[in-house]
Every structure is written in structure tokens, then in C-alpha cells.
């Protein structure tokens, strides 16, 4: 690891964009994070509050964007911050999605859509077909519809809401059975709640399709030191956050089942 990556850089928030009632996108100036590849994450310091891992949603020139859902203390505090206010970043950390070609399917749940959008933008011109299933509880929480429609194959974006306010009324995983049966995809990528990831992993295994998923675990150091984020023998922050099917098979006894809590105790996912 290059220590420069892990050195804390403070930087003003350049812009804030509201994506949904609970989700905002923050754009920061940071040369190092601007070199992030899809799948990598950064550690965002909210001064005096907390430091949390966030996937990179976009990176270009000297700018990097992250898309954040307000779920607790840190993220709610971040949501109250305005352009010009100072945050800290270190990273980018972790590995990235391999960039496949051919027919590609992505499945995004919640803010898990963010790193996949980043990936989709990279693959758009290369992929033979690019489909995206994106789901949320309700219409207003569906993320990046316009952006996804712009990069995916025509009619490639399938939306699901749990309350049926938009698209199909079901979980994001439901349309997958049919999709995978109908088309021989070359690669399925996913990011989102771990139960979703685990379901999709089983499906792709049944269909014998290449698969990569980005996982989330409690993270502290972000550099593979403290052990907070481990799943099986892997450190999500350093060996991941992206894992392929072979690796996920090795950690089946934990995937979607248990993780470490703040005190290092094994708790349900």
C-alpha cells in the first residue's frame, strides 16, 4: 500500500446533489481518489463525527463523487453539510470489478447502485449488451434511472419497487430467474444488501454464470490491518470489496449470514 493513499487529505465539498429523499451525491476534489476504478471505495472523514467507507460513484479528472444514504449518525451529519464545508478523504482503497465484455447484467440495490453505475459507464461502449436491474422500496428511492437509461442497452433497465409505485412490484432479485434463463449473460455484477447479494450469487451459480459482487462490512482502518471487516479469510477492505464466485463459495458460511459487530462479536447480517 502506498502511504500517500492512506494519508488524510482535507478538501471542500464542491457540490451536493439530492438523488432521493434519503440519498445525496457529494462531489469532492481529490487527485488520488479521482483515479479510483469502479468498485473501489474511499474513507470519508466527517470532522468531529466519524469516518466511514463509501464506494466511488464517479471519478474524473481531479474529482470524485460518492452517493450516500442517510442511515445513522455519520451519514445524517453528512447530509446536513453544504458545498464549501470541509471533509477528509483517504483512499482509494480495495480492488475493483474486472471489466468484462459480452452480455452483461448488473443488479443494484439501494446505494449499491452507485459503484455499478460507475462500472456501467466504463463498460457501456465495450459491452455487447448491458442490462441493469435496479430496485428500491418505493419510487422516490430508485436511484440513477436517467443515468442508467443513458448507458444501458435499449430497454435494458428493469426497475422494481417493493410497494409497486414504479416498475415491477417485487424485490430486485425476482426478475433475475427469467432474465438469466432467457439470455446467456457473460457476467453478472452486483452490489447492495448482503441478503440480495447472496440470493443472486446462488442464482448465478445455478446458471453457471461468472459473477462479481461488492460486499460491505464494518470498516475501521480500511487498509487491511484491524480485522473489523473480515469475511472468512478475506479482508473486505483490502482483498475486496469485490469478490468473484470462487471466493464467495469459500465464505458461504458467512455470506448473508453473519459479520463482525463493533466489538468483534459475530452478529447476524
Amino acid at each position, binding site marked *: *500500500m502506498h*502511504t500517500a493513499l*492512506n*494519508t*488524510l487529505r*482535507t478538501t471542500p465539498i464542491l457540490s451536493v446533489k439530492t438523488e432521493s429523499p434519503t440519498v445525496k451525491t457529494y462531489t469532492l476534489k481529490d487527485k488520488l481518489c479521482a483515479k479510483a476504478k469502479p468498485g473501489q471505495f474511499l*474513507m470519508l*472523514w466527517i*470532522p*468531529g463525527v*466519524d*469516518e*466511514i467507507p463509501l464506494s466511488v460513484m464517479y471519478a474524473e479528472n481531479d474529482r470524485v463523487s460518492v452517493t450516500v444514504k442517510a442511515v445513522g449518525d455519520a451519514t445524517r451529519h453528512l447530509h446536513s453539510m453544504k458545498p464549501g464545508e*470541509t471533509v*477528509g478523504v*483517504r483512499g482509494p482503497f480495495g480492488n475493483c470489478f474486472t471489466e468484462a465484455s459480452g452480455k452483461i447484467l448488473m443488479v443494484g440495490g439501494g446505494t449499491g447502485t452507485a459503484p455499478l453505475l460507475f462500472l456501467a459507464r466504463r463498460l457501456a461502449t465495450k459491452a455487447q449488451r448491458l442490462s441493469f436491474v435496479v430496485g428500491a422500496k418505493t419510487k422516490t428511492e430508485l436511484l440513477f434511472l436517467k443515468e442508467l437509461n443513458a448507458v444501458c442497452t435499449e430497454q435494458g433497465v428493469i426497475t422494481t419497487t417493493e410497494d409497486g409505485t414504479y416498475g415491477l412490484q417485487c424485490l430486485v432479485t425476482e426478475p433475475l430467474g427469467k432474465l438469466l434463463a432467457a439470455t446467456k449473460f457473460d457476467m453478472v455484477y452486483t452490489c447492495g444488501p448482503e441478503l440480495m447479494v447472496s440470493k443472486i450469487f446462488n442464482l448465478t451459480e445455478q446458471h453457471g454464470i461468472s459473477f462479481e459482487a461488492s460486499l460491505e462490512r464494518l470498516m*475501521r*482502518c*480500511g*487498509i*487491511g*490491518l*484491524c*480485522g*473489523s471487516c*473480515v469475511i*472468512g*479469510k*478475506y*479482508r473486505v477492505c*483490502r482483498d475486496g470489496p469485490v469478490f468473484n464466485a470462487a471466493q464467495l463459495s469459500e465464505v458461504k458460511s458467512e455470506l448473508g449470514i453473519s459479520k*463482525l*459487530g*463493533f*466489538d*468483534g*462479536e*459475530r452478529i447476524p447480517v
Partner: protein
Amino acid sequence: MSRNPLSTSFAGLKLRNPTALASGILGYTAESLQRVVEGGAGAVVTKSVGAAPRMGYANPTVVQANCGLVNAMGLPNPGIDEFVEEIAHAKIILQAPLIVSVFGYSAEEYALVAEKAVAAGAEALELNVSCPHVKQTGSEIGQNPRILAEVVAKVKGAVQVPVIVKLSPNVTDMAETARVAVKAGADALTAINTVKAMAIDVDTTLPVLSNTRGGLSGPAIKPIALRCVYDLYETVETPIIGCGGITTWKDAVEFFLAGAIAVQVGTAVALENPNVFHAINRGVKAYLKKKGYGSVKEIVGIAHRA
């Protein structure tokens, strides 16, 4: 004749090689400890575990310094009653000695945790009397000779396995602490834990760590740790395990020459990766061969001949 030049032993523990994982690094689960063994570690020390669960401090808990890290995790751990399962599991899958690191707020607590850890399968204990950023334990124990003696004696009375005492560099006279620990029964000493330190961000004008104060680890502290080991070697007969900034085989050899029978590696697991142990061992082996030594044990302390 095909003896393994890297094998070593101290306080009754036999190690395939003289490198061990330092406490607090990847030390929560059996699988990650085993990953480190696959990476070449000759032994592993778990995260420090106490009598009750602790959440640790909020992030930031680790901050990069010029030549090392400053950390204040706050001893997050699930408590020994949860951790015994991990110990038992580790005992089954681990292909190297399992050392459980123990902390407490009193001699009784240390002894209680120690007993449970040993019952679950710990092959040795390391007493953390040197964590520099949690109140009423760690270095606050190690800095007080009376309490330190009590802690070591009580643990020794409670268990049959080797007891290693991990020392703090944040003392006026480490030789004194070492003598107290040895007199109270320590079977080996680990030197050193992190050095008191902190980081401040000039932009926000805030201390970076949520706990404000933390401990410095990594290459920055190597010359400090090396002197501690060198001094201890002239002070006690007890085996010394060197720790602090060890990243390369050269670092490790310097510690052996200073008097360490084995070394622990922490921060380098992040600076490099878990295979850093293999890299160190390969280098040490090549060094021994080039210099004509048959065993790493032959070079322990020879920098003192001068």
C-alpha cells in the same frame, strides 16, 4: 542435517519460524489468524480480549503518519465469553501456536480472562499491560510496578501455559518494568507496544483520532523498539520477543542480533500484506545461510559481543 534453520522456541512454545502476528492485527477470527499462518507466521497473537465486550472508539481510529500509523482502536473486543468459541475454533484449524492476548481492569479480571482463554485452547497468553490509549488498563497497569507484579502473579497462579508480558515503551525505565514482570513469573517479554502519539489536522484544526490520543506503530518506531530489546537483553535472562516497525527481513535480523528470540509483526501486514511473514522468513533464511549460521538461535544477542 535437514534441520529447519528458522525453527525456534521460547518458554516451552515451539515455533516453525521466529515470526508471529502482533496483537490487534486481524486477530478477531480463527480464519483470519489462519490466513496469517498461511502467510508464513510461525505463531499468532489474538486481538486483546477482556472480561466484557467493548465497542472501541468511533472512527477515525487509525491515521497515517510519516513513517507509521497512529491508532486508537480502544480495545474493541467481544469479551472472553464470546471469544472462547473463536479460540476453540482457532485451536482446531490453526497450524501454529495460538497466543491469546488478555487485558483487564484488575488482576482478578486478567486472571479470569486468562483462565477462560486457556480452557478454550490458548497455548500461551500475552498480557497487554501496555496499550497507551485506554484508561485504567494497558499501560496504566504496566507503568505501576506494584499492580503489574500483582497481575502477572495472579495470572501465573491461574494458568499452566506460558505467560508473556507485553511491555510499554512509555516508561522512564523499561528495565525496571521488565524486572518486576520477570520476578512475578513472566515466562517471556514482548517489546514493544505502540508509543504515545497523536495527529492533528491543520485544516479543521482538530485532532484526527476520535480518541484524540493514540499510539505510534510502524517503521518510525523501529529504532526505539530495537533499543528496548537491546536494553532488556542486558537486563533479564527471560526470552524477549521483539516488536515494533518490523517490515523486512533486515529489520527482523536486527532484532535477533539485539537479543530477540522471535519477532512480532503488526503494521507491516497493512503496509505489505499477510504474506509479509513469508518474505521475512525467506530473507532471514538466506541471511543465515550467507553468514554460515545453522540456526536463527545462533544470532540472538550477538550484537552485544562488542
